[in-house]
């Protein structure tokens, strides 16, 4: 069988789990139900990130094929829509829906999860001392990016609102799925900006104008915050404040729905 172009590209690229970037990039894909590679389309071109949705053998083959195809296509479509509307997302470099490969711009930086307290917990959950060290490290890291926690939360809120304004629903908003560009790799026309927040991993995204879907999107993020970062409430409040500000007149409806969704969440614990 002839090896497809995408397959040969994968074979020549560097799996991220083995690369030097592993520490910063690997778990930023909560969606590591796929393989991630760093590749170059040509020797001179900047690096790109390959997301390879390899076959999942636990799923029925037909189901798997359909899901892979629609997820790759959906992801590309959502990214494109975001790019056109000025939401910060990685640019698309290649799409191969049949083989399940998507190539996007490589982003130099760090996931928001790692920059917030508690986000590095999984690196050493059994060692409280180590945990304290890494938490101290978080704040230093943030300084390196020239933003405060509150400033970062504001950026998160604004970016999500920009995305929701063009009716793109991310579907898997977590702090792992947001990256801060490293100041060294970032040059902006606005001199006060040292970095920018980039939303990544649109693997579960879809388009919807419904208030319900936007509210659920926010709810997923709220839950991600509370399960990953201790004492996240004030952080999420400032995310919502910035979100509300950017959404403008659409906010009250989404807020009401978000309150509904939260109640729905509580009901779940009812029976056993």
């Amino acid at each position, binding site marked *: 069988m002839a090896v497809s172009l995408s397959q040969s590209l994968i074979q020549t690229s560097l799996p991220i789990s083995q690369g030097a970037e592993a520490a910063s990039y690997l*778990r930023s*894909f*909560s*969606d*590591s*139900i796929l393989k991630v590679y760093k590749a170059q389309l040509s020797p001179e071109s900047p690096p790109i990130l390959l997301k390879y949705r390899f076959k*999942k*053998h*636990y*799923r*029925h083959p*037909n*189901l798997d094929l*359909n*899901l892979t195809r629609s997820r790759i296509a959906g992801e590309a479509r959502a990214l494109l829509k975001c790019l056109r509307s000025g939401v910060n997302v990685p640019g698309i470099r290649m799409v191969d829906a049949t083989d399940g490969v998507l190539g996007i711009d490589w982003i130099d930086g760090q996931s928001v999860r790692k920059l917030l307290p508690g986000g590095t*917990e*999984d*690196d*050493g*959950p*059994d*060692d409280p001392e*180590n945990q304290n060290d890494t938490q101290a490290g978080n704040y230093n890291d943030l300084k390196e990016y020239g933003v405060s926690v509150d400033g970062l939360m504001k950026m998160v809120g604004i970016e999500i609102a920009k995305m929701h304004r063009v009716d793109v629903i991310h*579907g*898997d*908003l*977590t702090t*792992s799925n947001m990256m801060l560009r490293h100041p060294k790799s970032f040059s902006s026309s606005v001199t006060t900006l040292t970095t920018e927040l980039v939303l990544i991993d649109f693997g*579960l995204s879809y388009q919807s104008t419904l208030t319900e879907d936007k509210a*659920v999107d926010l709810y*997923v993020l709220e*839950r*991600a915050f509370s*399960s990953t970062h201790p004492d996240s409430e004030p952080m999420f409040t400032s995310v919502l404040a910035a979100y509300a500000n950017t959404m403008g007149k659409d906010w009250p409806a989404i807020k009401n729905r978000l309150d509904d969704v939260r109640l*729905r*969440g*509580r*009901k*779940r*614990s*009812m*029976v*056993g």
Partner: protein
Amino acid sequence: MPGKIRQTPLKSADRDYLALGLEGSANKFGAGIMKHSKDGSAIVLSNVRHTYVTPPGEGFQPRDTALHHREWALKVIDDCLTKAGVSMHQIDCICFTKGPGMGAPLQSVALVARTLSLLFNKPLVGVNHCVGHIEMGREITGAQNPVVLYVSGGNTQVIAYSRQCYRIFGETLDIAVGNCLDRFARIINLSNDPAPGYNIEQEAKKGKRLLPLPYATKGMDVSLSGILSAVEAYTLDKRFRTQEASADSPPDEDIITPQDLCFSLQETVYAMLVEITERAMAHIGSKEVLIVGGVGSNERLQQMMGIMAQERRGLVFATDERFCIDNGIMIAQAGLLSYRMGFETPLAKSTCTQRFRTDEVHVAWRS
């Protein structure tokens, strides 16, 4: 994993401990006796259960289920004590399900627990049902710190332990997976004996075609109610034939059988559950997964989870129906753990509640 091994806050037993566990949050009444020996081992002395089975097409109503529990409670407890060969006087504590579950059945069981506690002057320990499942699963399989997929008639949660709490990473946004399967079994009139889910599993083995159903994962959460509606809609499709009618149709005719629907439903919802579990494993970097709850006894789900774990070079732990499906022994196990940490439920507070989230429990016995 680097780093030192943490000391467990649970002191080794200075003597043998015995606990009676009473469970009745849904349609099963269970009683079990757990022994924690001096040498650190936990022994199941007995584990007895009686299930309230309703006719095909019917679910169990709270009122009737409570009646069933009241009728069977004393017989089951008696049987359980006889099998264990212990008397009530030897028991250290009486553990009962505080919640979550159906109100009326929970109350019936709490009443039995309270009465026994007063009669024999034994302390009460209220237990969270979900934590009971997790602790029993850990004890039986020996899994140390797994990601837990808890799937039953009333719950669908992906749970992981962190800082003395079982945190919920993902769960269902509407109905539980067992509820989805049970209700579909009712639609196609499958028997509830021994369990609707078991009969769906048997039917699914005869299914051939995978029909498109919604695939609704939202982050680490799933939504199942839409799938139930979609699969129900197929039963109104003009290609749908019941079992008897499908036998008469020519082999090449385009038909949908109940078996195909069972197969499609299982494949789709289990793929979703395995996916969110995998996502949670990736998120927290764990290699172990433990399946608990009634639906956890489904062999197809265990098989799919096994393949996923293998691809990640992880391990899957599952138990059989004795410990997966609601039982008394798991309440005894979780209750005894907290009793040994000094926790007791005073009589005045021995209430039960329909809403009791897994993450509300302080897991004092783990570090």
